[in-house]
């Protein structure tokens, strides 16, 4: 899946960043970069895809462990 960012800068300067296709902690790292760059964090929400990718990664590790 393509990694995407949608950045919206409102007329009052407030910034909303939405990520798509960025798995797990990498998404949080990217969010940290924007907070450090711009100012004060108001809201940070992990969406279902964040947890899906986390779950998929855990499942993959478990399958590998079972095989070995």
């Amino acid at each position, binding site marked *: 899946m393509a*990694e995407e960012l949608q950045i919206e*800068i409102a007329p009052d300067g407030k910034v909303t960043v*939405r990520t798509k296709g960025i798995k797990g902690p990498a998404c949080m790292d990217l969010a940290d970069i924007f907070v450090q760059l711009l100012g*004060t964090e108001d809201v940070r929400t992990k969406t279902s895809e964040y947890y899906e990718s986390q779950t998929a990664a855990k499942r993959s590790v478990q399958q590998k462990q079972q095989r070995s």
Partner: protein
Amino acid sequence: MSCVLVVTPLVIGSWPAISAAVTAAIATMGYSLAKAAGQRHGVDQHGKAKAEITVEDSEILEDGAGTGQEIVVEKDGIRATFSRDARGALRVCMEGEGHSKAELKKIGEELIGRVTQQYVYHKVVTELKERRMAIVGEEVGEDRTIKIHVRNW
């Protein structure tokens, strides 16, 4: 979607960086530059309503060039003067005949918002380029929200 982040920006920069944001913002709002980068005169416009606004989340760095200067912009008899206050914050003084102080304050806050928006836009685009992140689309919505689309870096 993986995550959603909302950030309130801090405007911290040199006077030239703030000036560039002011110039970009006024161009989109129909203001014209009455005086750019001039020395402060402190001229009092007698008889005109006046509203002063200090941008709390701002800091104009002292060691940059032009910190003692101001930018004056005008539109429909309203004059806005941008300068750095004694604490180093961005200050905007709004003046205009036929407007109440509250009206001038409201107009000034809208102007400050758009200056902040342009400042943030420049900062974001510069950072994306430095990180070699490809901007594949940019648009300005009817509500003047700037949308930047980045893909595959």
